[in-house]
């Protein structure tokens, strides 16, 4: 009833977890059955180990939060040699979010992940607002976005998802550019660039001054962008941004997303993904829907 497809990937249901909000999945094993998920997008992984930005890295804002983690991760080698072996036997799609500061770095990481049997896809993060060099730089310019995607395409042979930033004038232009460059799917949105100031201490909450906004506050922006992109490209779209319940996920599906990702909501309720899957089943039963694909893109 809930099965969907993203390029060659079969998802048990459309509910995946968003990169950077779900660790490597293991952190949630006490709370949920990870094998019930449609997929897990693990932490942003770079060519070398990264320390990330200094503390403080987060601030709560109305209906959301700002973060400035800055891609702290163990690096692709440790991922392949250690982390991969701990998680590879999970019965779900494990997708690695590949981040970087240069085309060479993206290609190095992508080709190393290509060799891992149990990783059927990567999500190319050309949209991180929290690193000084590269990151969002690639995702805000259609030519640069196309260039990085076509280079990675040469070394990566499985499903290539490209994650888009909302911090652009026309997300549709970027989506089309990466589609033409060989992307198999696009996911959106990454965080919105934001800022908050502690007026008592008279300084910004984040060590980096600005950071990425996520959570329920961003959902209407995300739904709008997913709807625009879904109407403009032929490749499948994955929608995310502020999803906390089945009704939120349904908005994205109706707007044209073939699957969704849940991010910040995992912090609020570590078991939220299971409730969303249950809620989607319940919705389908209540509306006499035998295949979730019937409602995808109906708007």
């Amino acid at each position, binding site marked *: 009833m809930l099965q969907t497809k993203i390029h060659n990937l079969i998802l048990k249901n459309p509910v995946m977890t968003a990169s*950077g*909000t*779900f*660790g490597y999945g293991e*952190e*949630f094993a*006490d*709370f949920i059955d990870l094998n019930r998920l449609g997929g897990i997008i693990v932490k942003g992984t770079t060519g070398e180990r990264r*320390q*990330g930005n*200094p*503390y*403080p*890295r*987060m*601030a*709560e804002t*109305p*209906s*959301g*939060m700002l*973060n400035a*983690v800055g891609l*702290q991760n163990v690096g692709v080698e440790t991922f392949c040699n250690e982390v991969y072996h701990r998680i590879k036997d999970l019965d779900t799609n494990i997708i690695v979010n590949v981040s970087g500061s240069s085309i060479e770095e993206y290609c190095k990481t992508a080709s190393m992940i290509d060799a891992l049997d149990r990783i059927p896809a990567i999500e190319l993060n050309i949209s991180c607002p929290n690193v000084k060099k590269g990151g969002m730089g690639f995702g805000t310019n259609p030519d640069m976005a196309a260039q990085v995607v076509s280079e990675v395409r040469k070394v990566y042979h499985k499903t290539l998802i490209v994650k888009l930033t909302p911090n652009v004038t026309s997300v549709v232009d970027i989506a089309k550019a990466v589609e033409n460059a060989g992307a198999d799917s696009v996911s959106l949105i990454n965080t919105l660039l934001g800022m908050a100031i502690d007026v008592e201490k008279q300084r910004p909450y984040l060590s980096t001054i600005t950071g990425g906004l996520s*959570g*329920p506050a961003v959902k209407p922006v995300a739904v709008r962008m997913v709807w625009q992109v879904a109407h403009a490209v032929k490749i499948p779209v994955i929608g995310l941004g502020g999803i906390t319940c089945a009704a939120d996920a349904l908005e994205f599906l109706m707007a044209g997303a073939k699957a969704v990702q849940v991010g*910040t909501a*995992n*912090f*609020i*309720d*570590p*078991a939220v993904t299971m409730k969303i899957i249950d809620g989607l089943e319940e919705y389908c039963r209540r509306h006499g829907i035998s295949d979730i694909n019937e409602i995808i893109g109906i708007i």
Partner: protein
Amino acid sequence: MRKQITDFTIVEKQVFNETYFTLKLQHPGILPEIKAGQFVEVEVPGNKQVVLRRPISIHDVDTDNNTITLLIQVVGKGTKTLSNMKEGDTINMVYPLGHGFSLEGEKVLLVGGGAGIAPLLHLSKCLNLKGIHPVILLGGRTKSLIPIQKEFEPYGQVCFATEDGSLGEKGLVTQHSMFSRDYDHIYTCGPTPMMKAVARHALDKGIECEVSLENMMACGIGACLCCVVDSDQGHKCVCKEGPVFNAKQLTNWINNK
């Protein structure tokens, strides 16, 4: 220890003043083992301004009655909302989180300040079970900001330091006459400048010292990497690898103003 998400019921609320209150919370079944220094992530119901859970130390544990107690200081919107909750209300918590204190040492000193006093009660009790009776030094600006006093008495030698002299000796905890006695292990939780001063003293004297950090958190379970401390081995998650750290791992942090 397996982490859980559980609805607890408030069975007792004690209000000390505008700033401090405690909530005694009943587990619906059998409470799992809780180590001294572990914490909970509390959902704050009924305030749309608060989306994330709030990390709070486990102040006291009663395994016979399956209750835990939290000692909370009102500092902002989340803790204010919690202070308005009543006996009979339910609170959803993710717990037990983090690594606790080691319970090591023979001549032991506990140093607490402000809401950092919270984890020290369960710690005192756990130390007693190992036959250790610590010196418990509690500090604050003034008497009313040291909400929990008598509760500690059965578990060690309790002494106080207040900046205005309204309770115990006048001055900071590090100026207290009991502070520089001969100890082999110090445990501390409280305001950052206090913990740094205590840890610096311990490192200088070669005393083992464990500090319990209170960094801002989003997930509390090691998934978001928001809560890191700049340890000597790089950024470490306070929620998962802490909140308790041996001071020897934190010389960067201790010496950084």
